[in-house]
């Protein structure tokens, strides 16, 4: 087979490690709009739903029954179903139709109707709609905190750092189920060391999950998975009614829950019934709403690579987030499981939720390196944090993570380790040593942690679970060891359970432990000037990334080491020596600035030029121009003064040209505009070439490095140095001859 070298190179790009599959409705391989999807319809008889999406009541499956009985608002259904889907789609995008009105109308829609509405929207329109329909005004984010060695010190340190970074919720799970009590404890202590009010969960089976909640170690759960066909639901060993009861059971213990669903799961399980993934997800979402859950994590979740393998799969994922939000549900919008090998493709997909903002932009940002991620690897890991924060700063978007300094991170990690040590000591658990705390403070991943006796930890974790100790005892132990602030935060997490406000839709806790929810922090977006805006202190924090430097830090006034002294020797006049080359220097040269962009001192540059000129048997004359910072003009004036007619223009940042008397100011013999790419050897050759031009010899090529990134890297420095040069300009001040004094 013929191979194009370009195709070959592209075939090795990360994106081509991803899998792409053609649509096949028979196998459920359709993201949206399957030919097998029903046409929207609804028949009500005396307030009872007797037909829905082409199916008679007698033929309803259990999900249909549940949706018809609990989810669809029958008081608005006839009105909503009579409205053209296109009109509803336009209302979703229209900034003058309020969120509440859309929730009212969409609550009367059938699954097929919801999908038909989505079919009219392109992704930009869906993003517009999601911005308006998100439940909470302020966007948020959730982090995953796990480590494969189940080290409780590292887990507490990671939790503390994630909390300090601004995550509203932290989720852990375990590799060894019996470590769950310690993982939940580490998450609680760590999170409340980092920032009071962060909610936590430990994803384990329901009975254990509930027990961790009863001990006050966790505040929320999102383990309630649902699927969009009866067969898939039954495969998961549940019914709509069992899941609904479980939701109420959690609420009865003051534990916030959200359901989990997402496109692709039914197809993966083999029970998709030939329907599109989005249609089945719409059924899930109505089930979730019918069960009375406040919210859902969806967006394909762990099936993202399956939905994403299909045409318009990523569009369908955005559509499912939007349907959930439009039904009034809190949305934790996926972006947690690995979605692509390609950073570009991952980032592009992320933007669909990142830019409009969702209640939780990810349903688990991997706050540690991938190897320690016990959820099967994160889509975005500890390594990607800076990219995330810089994109937020670029776009003035709050996607729920705030920059912190290295010092802050180390300090909070160390303190979380110490707090855990205090609790373990107070409870008589296996000792946490100081060297473990230090390792956790500075660790990259769990390989950096000293070994612990896992058997002893597991035994203690089981005693903890079976015994009487609760979060109140955790607070007591912390308080008695001098961690009164952490103790107060742990206690406040118990107090808010009594209040129950965090059970409201999309609730997270603010710094005062007050719930910010769809009821208290209403998304009031109605176009420009309304809704959530990144401003004030939030913007100050988001924009002040540690990588940011001030102009003074980037270009110090002088380094104090120009490597040369330029001694004025009177006004420069036209030369008569035909063997001279005049080197014109910018006004700040070796004064306010003393290094070029390529890192050479001004002394090194002048020495190199001198070397090149004298090697050809000519003599340099150095002249400072005070009246211009323009390289072309400096060189042009130098040529006017030069007895040979050849002048070199040299700006302080290193930009250089060679010109001849008689040429127009912008018409040069040679121009070296990319100062960062020059070197000592280049300046020697520039000097030699200037002399060659004077002698009528052919010039030689100047060695210039090829670095396409130099402009990107140094454009700010170049601009600041040029500003400095301009500031040194003295209009009307005559050019001066200079004598060079090189430092020893």
């Amino acid at each position, binding site marked *: 087979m013929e191979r194009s070298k370009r195709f070959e190179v592209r075939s090795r790009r990360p994106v081509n490690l991803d899998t792409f599959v053609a649509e096949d409705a028979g196998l459920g391989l359709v993201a949206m709009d399957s030919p097998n999807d029903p046409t929207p319809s609804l028949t009500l008889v005396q307030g009872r739903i007797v037909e829905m999406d082409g199916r008679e009541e007698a033929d309803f499956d*259990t999900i249909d*029954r*549940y949706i018809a*009985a*609990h*989810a669809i*608002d029958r008081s608005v259904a006839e009105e909503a179903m009579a409205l053209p889907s296109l009109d509803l789609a336009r209302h979703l995008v229209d900034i003058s139709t309020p969120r*509440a009105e859309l929730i*009212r109308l969409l609550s009367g829609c059938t699954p097929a109707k919801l999908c038909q509405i989505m079919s009219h929207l392109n992704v930009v329109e869906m993003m517009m709609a999601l911005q308006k329909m998100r439940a909470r005004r302020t966007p948020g984010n959730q982090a995953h905190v796990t480590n494969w060695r189940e080290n409780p010190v590292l887990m507490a340190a990671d939790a503390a750092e994630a909390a300090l970074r601004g995550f509203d919720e932290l989720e852990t799970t375990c590799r060894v189920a019996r470590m769950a009590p310690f993982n939940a404890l580490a998450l609680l202590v760590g999170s409340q060391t980092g920032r009071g009010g962060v909610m936590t969960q430990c994803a384990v089976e*329901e*009975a254990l999950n*509930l*027990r961790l909640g*009863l001990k*006050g170690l966790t505040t929320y759960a999102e383990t309630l998975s649902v699927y969009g066909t*009866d067969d898939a639901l*039954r495969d998961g*060993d*549940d*019914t709509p*009614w*069992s899941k*609904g*009861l479980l*939701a*109420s*059971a959690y*609420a*009865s*213990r*003051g534990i916030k829950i959200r359901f989990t669903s997402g496109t692709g799961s039914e197809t993966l399980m083999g029970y998709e019934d030939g329907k599109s993934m989005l249609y089945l997800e719409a059924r899930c979402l109505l089930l979730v*709403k*019918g*069960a*009375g*859950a*406040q919210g859902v994590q969806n967006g394909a979740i762990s099936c993202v690579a399956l939905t994403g393998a299909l045409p318009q799969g990523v569009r369908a994922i955005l559509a499912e987030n939007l349907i959930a939000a439009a039904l*009034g549900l809190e949305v934790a919008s996926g972006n947690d499981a690995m979605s692509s090998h390609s950073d570009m493709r991952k980032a592009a997909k992320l933007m669909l939720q990142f830019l409009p903002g969702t209640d939780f932009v990810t349903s688990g940002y991997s706050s540690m390196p991938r190897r320690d991620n016990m959820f099967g690897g994160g889509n975005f890991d500890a390594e990607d944090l800076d990219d995330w924060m810089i994109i937020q700063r670029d776009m003035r978007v709050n996607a729920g993570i705030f920059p912190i300094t290295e010092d802050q991170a180390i300090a909070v990690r160390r303190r979380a380790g110490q707090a855990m040590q205090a609790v373990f000591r107070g409870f008589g658990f296996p000792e946490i040593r100081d060297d473990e705390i230090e390792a956790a403070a500075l660790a990259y991943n769990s390989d950096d942690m000293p070994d612990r006796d896992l058997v002893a930890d597991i035994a203690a974790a089981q005693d903890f679970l079976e015994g*009487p100790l*609760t*979060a*109140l005892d955790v*607070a*007591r132990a912390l*308080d008695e060891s001098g961690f*009164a602030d952490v*103790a*107060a935060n742990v*206690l406040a997490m*118990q*107090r808010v*359970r*009594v*209040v*129950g406000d965090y*059970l*409201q*839709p999309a609730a997270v806790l603010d710094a005062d432990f007050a719930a910010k929810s*769809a*009821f208290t922090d209403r998304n009031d977006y109605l176009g420009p000037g309304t809704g959530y805006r990144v401003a004030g202190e939030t913007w100050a924090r988001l924009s002040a990334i540690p990588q940011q430097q001030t102009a003074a830090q980037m270009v110090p006034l002088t380094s104090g080491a120009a490597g040369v002294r330029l001694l004025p020797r009177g006004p420069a006049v036209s030369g008569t020596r035909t063997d001279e080359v005049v080197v014109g220097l910018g006004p700040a040269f070796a004064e306010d600035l003393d290094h070029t962009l390529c890192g050479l001192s001004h002394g090194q540059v002048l020495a190199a030029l001198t070397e090149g000129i004298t090697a050809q048997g000519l003599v340099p004359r150095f002249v400072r121009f005070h009246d211009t910072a323009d390289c072309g003009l400096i060189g042009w004036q130098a040529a006017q003064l030069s007895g040979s007619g050849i002048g070199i223009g040299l700006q302080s940042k290193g930009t250089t040209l060679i010109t001849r008397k008689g040429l127009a100011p912008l018409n040069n013999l040679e121009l070296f505009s990319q100062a960062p790419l020059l070197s000592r050897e280049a300046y020697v050759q520039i000097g030699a070439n200037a002399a060659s031009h004077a002698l009528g010899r052919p010039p030689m090529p100047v060695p210039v490095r090829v670095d396409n990134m130099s402009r990107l890297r140094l454009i700010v420095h170049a601009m600041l140095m040029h500003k400095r040069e301009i500031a040194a300009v003295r209009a009307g001040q005559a050019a001066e001859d200079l004598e060079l004094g090189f430092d020893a």
Partner: protein
Amino acid sequence: MPDHRDTDIDPRRRESSMLPEDISLDALRAGGIEPEDVTIRRRTLDAQAERAEAEGFPQLARNFRRAAELTAIPAPVLLDLYEKLRPKRARYEELLALSQEVTARFDAPETGAYIREAAEVYRTKGLVRD
């Protein structure tokens, strides 16, 4: 329905009347806070249900009302209720009996009705134990 075995894991032996603002570090130091003081209460969930209803979230309100009822049911019993509602775990008559027992013994009429509704669906959809 099993007895209240293993109720130690559930601190809800009585409904506390401690006010949230009294749950302070000083009170903890004085030994004045017990685990049941920091559990959610039936009336709190009823109040949250009213709030949800007023905000236009009727399903959420119903969930909170069921949750309010479930506060009286010990965790092991609660988990058993959930287990019984999973596919093919209970016969139709068992579910009806469960519904009546929950309603009467724990003053949980909404939950009882919910279980009864499930029983009717399960019977026609092959979800009851044979």
